[in-house]
């Protein structure tokens, strides 16, 4: 009889990552999650079984070789570990922080069937932070291909395409409309979730690879896509994001004190209004804030408002179970003092003589039976209106793509209803040599899904250039 192999010992419990205490962090904008120490990373890495057919990797939109980099952590070979990640992901310090790992790689981890999955995101962050401290190594330069590519938007999608294509020897110009690169990483996600020093480091890594980043260049106005193609660019990638805020359409929405999530976050994050008057851009926030919406952007607005000293209510038209935000973000927000008001929708806003919002009328909602897709709708409960006092409202009910590029590019097909640019599975648009990916093609989604789209588009653009005479 053959001897049975000893089963590997399973450690079902993941190593916790230290966080700032709720009562401390809800008064500052420093990063909430503090990252693993070396010994914590070692211990967590040791939980990985190193499966020969890693399911985790298939759960990653950019297919990071997860068991390989975890093995490097076990061996304390951190430099090699980060290089393995960077073969697939140019922004690991970002992804280690803001990826929804619980529904991607970690959801597929085999240990997750019996206990807590390996904390892949935290380990990725550990390596990325190690590299930021110890200096990044640049890959060897490859011979130039002689092809020029214009990338529109320096957000997650654009940065990914730029990094992948510059490594293949193409000449890359990246046009960013704002005066700071990073897209949503800079203007949207708050400092306490993603420190801007980390984002700047990732951007400068992409620049060091040889990418020419031009800030304050709004494509569609300063140059158009047809002009870029005429003036020497062999291909164009559009990664301009979903920057156009949606409003509720309720009466009184133009009162002072009512911000779109974009305005609020741009002021606070990009322009650093939380440090006003040291920084010149102000933000006015009241004692009682209502954030309308239930996604990650709503959570970011709510948690920022708490840090600015306000009492914050989240108004969401569905129930807790239906909140689209990451579970971790909701938990963090509630620990910090967020009050949730579920099954409620806005009806009207009321202001004072100076045009500042003072109250709002809401109505109770109830869930309807799930539709064919399983998503439950909502309907208003007649006669259930109620009034709440409020002096700041933040509307976080979604963004759609900015229409400037679509309006200034003849023949570029887009969805008439949502404004998203129409692409095939590799990101090709209706125009030859023009690709798009990220929120501009899908509507508002996650950083990592934009990066995944960027990876596919980069591969397709490379093939297109090889075949192009």
């Amino acid at each position: 009889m053959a001897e049975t192999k000893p089963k590997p010992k399973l450690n079902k419990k993941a190593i916790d990552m230290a966080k700032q205490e709720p009562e401390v962090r809800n008064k500052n904008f420093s990063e909430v999650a503090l990252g693993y120490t070396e010994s914590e990373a070692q211990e967590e890495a040791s939980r990985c079984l190193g499966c020969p057919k890693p399911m985790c990797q298939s759960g990653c939109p950019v297919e990071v070789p997860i068991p390989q980099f975890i093995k490097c952590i076990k061996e304390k070979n951190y430099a090699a570990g980060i290089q393995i990640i960077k073969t697939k992901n140019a922004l690991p310090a970002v992804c280690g922080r803001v990826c929804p790992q619980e529904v991607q790689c970690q959801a597929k981890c085999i240990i997750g069937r019996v206990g807590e999955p390996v904390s892949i995101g935290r380990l990725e962050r550990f390596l990325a932070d190690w590299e930021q401290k110890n200096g990044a190594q640049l890959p060897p330069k490859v011979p130039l291909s002689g092809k020029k590519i214009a990338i529109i938007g320096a957000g997650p999608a654009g940065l990914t395409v730029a990094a992948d294509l510059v490594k293949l020897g193409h000449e890359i110009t990246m046009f960013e409309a704002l005066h700071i690169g990073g897209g949503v990483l800079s203007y949207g996600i708050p400092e306490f979730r993603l420190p801007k020093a980390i984002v700047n480091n990732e951007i400068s890594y992409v620049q060091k690879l040889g990418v020419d980043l031009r800030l304050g260049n709004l494509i569609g106005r300063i140059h158009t896509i047809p002009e870029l193609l005429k003036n020497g660019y062999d291909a164009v990638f559009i990664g301009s994001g979903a920057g156009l805020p949606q409003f509720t359409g309720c009466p009184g929405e133009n009162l002072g004190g009512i911000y779109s999530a974009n305005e609020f976050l741009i002021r606070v994050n990009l322009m650093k209004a939380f440090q006003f008057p040291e920084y010149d851009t102000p933000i006015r926030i009241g004692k009682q804030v209502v954030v309308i919406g239930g996604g990650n952007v709503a959570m970011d607005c709510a948690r920022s408002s708490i840090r600015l000293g306000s009492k914050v209510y989240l108004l969401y038209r569905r129930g807790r179970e239906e909140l689209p935000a990451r579970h971790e973000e909701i938990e963090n927000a509630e620990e910090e003092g967020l009050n949730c008001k579920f099954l409620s929708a806005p009806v009207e806003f009321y202001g004072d003589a100076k045009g500042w919002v003072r109250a709002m009328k809401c109505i109770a909602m109830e869930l309807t039976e799930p539709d064919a897709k399983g998503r439950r709708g909502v309907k208003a409960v007649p006669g259930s209106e109620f009034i709440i006092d409020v002096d700041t409202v933040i509307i976080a009910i979604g963004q759609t793509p900015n229409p400037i590029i679509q309006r200034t590019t003849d023949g570029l097909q887009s969805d008439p209803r949502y404004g998203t640019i129409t692409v095939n599975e590799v990101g090709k648009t209706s125009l030859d040599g023009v690709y798009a990916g990220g929120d501009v093609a899908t509507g508002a989604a996650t950083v990592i899904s934009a990066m995944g789209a960027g990876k596919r588009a980069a591969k397709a653009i490379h093939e297109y250039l090889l075949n192009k005479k």
Partner: protein
Amino acid sequence: MYPIINKTELAPKIKLFEVKAPDVAAKSHPGQFLIVIHGEKGERIPLTICGYDLKNGTVSFAFHEVGKTTQDLGKLEPNQEIDNVTGPLGNPSEIKNFGKVLCVGGSVMIAPLLLQAKALKEAGNHVTTLLGARCKDFIMLEDEAKGYSDKVYIATDDGSKGNKGLDFLVELLKTEKFDRCIVMGPVILMKDISAITKPYGIPTVVTLTPIMIDGMGMCGVCRVTVGGKMLFGCVDGAEFDGHLVDFDELILRQRTMLPEERLSSVLAEMNGGCKCGRNKT
């Protein structure tokens, strides 16, 4: 970086900068604007384009030193550089032969108005220009206005130069017909002129300059109600039908950050200037 080529004082605390920005200049049209950002801690401010020179690759804009940001900007001298000039933004004005056009400009906005007046004149229009301001000190570019116009009127609030107030215009419209009116200036001027032209059905185009941050459709702080619809000053404008704009709402929205703006100015004065670390001369 965008080097300042020329700096002119048009009136007390009103400055005109000509800045090297060839790509911006190449695409600029009357009616469009720029977002200017200076200093690591600076804010983004929208300024209407006053001119562009394709040969020299320059674009110019005027600003009134009313707050910390504009005061900081005003301290820069030729050969110094502005960190970022983004543009052109917004939609170009409609320039064609309308017939008889009345062009109205108020204080700092006289400078961009004349760019339009010039283009309208070149398009074959009969151009009547009205320069307005609080008092005579802020009536600027009178000679340029005469060069681009068939007729020039002056009006001041205090009557220190030309007509006192706008009553004369009410009288003028009783006898003279105009096919179009364009107004650039303080909101109150655009509101008043729109009210004056409305009974005569003169199509009146106003250039709105609400508070903006990105200036490209992202933040929505520049939203205005026009004909009952919510539009964005930056991407739907900056020009709108003056007879449809809800000016009272716009006036309130422009005041939303006044206390913060005042605080910034006071602190800047107390600290003896700006914090951008460049103007220690």
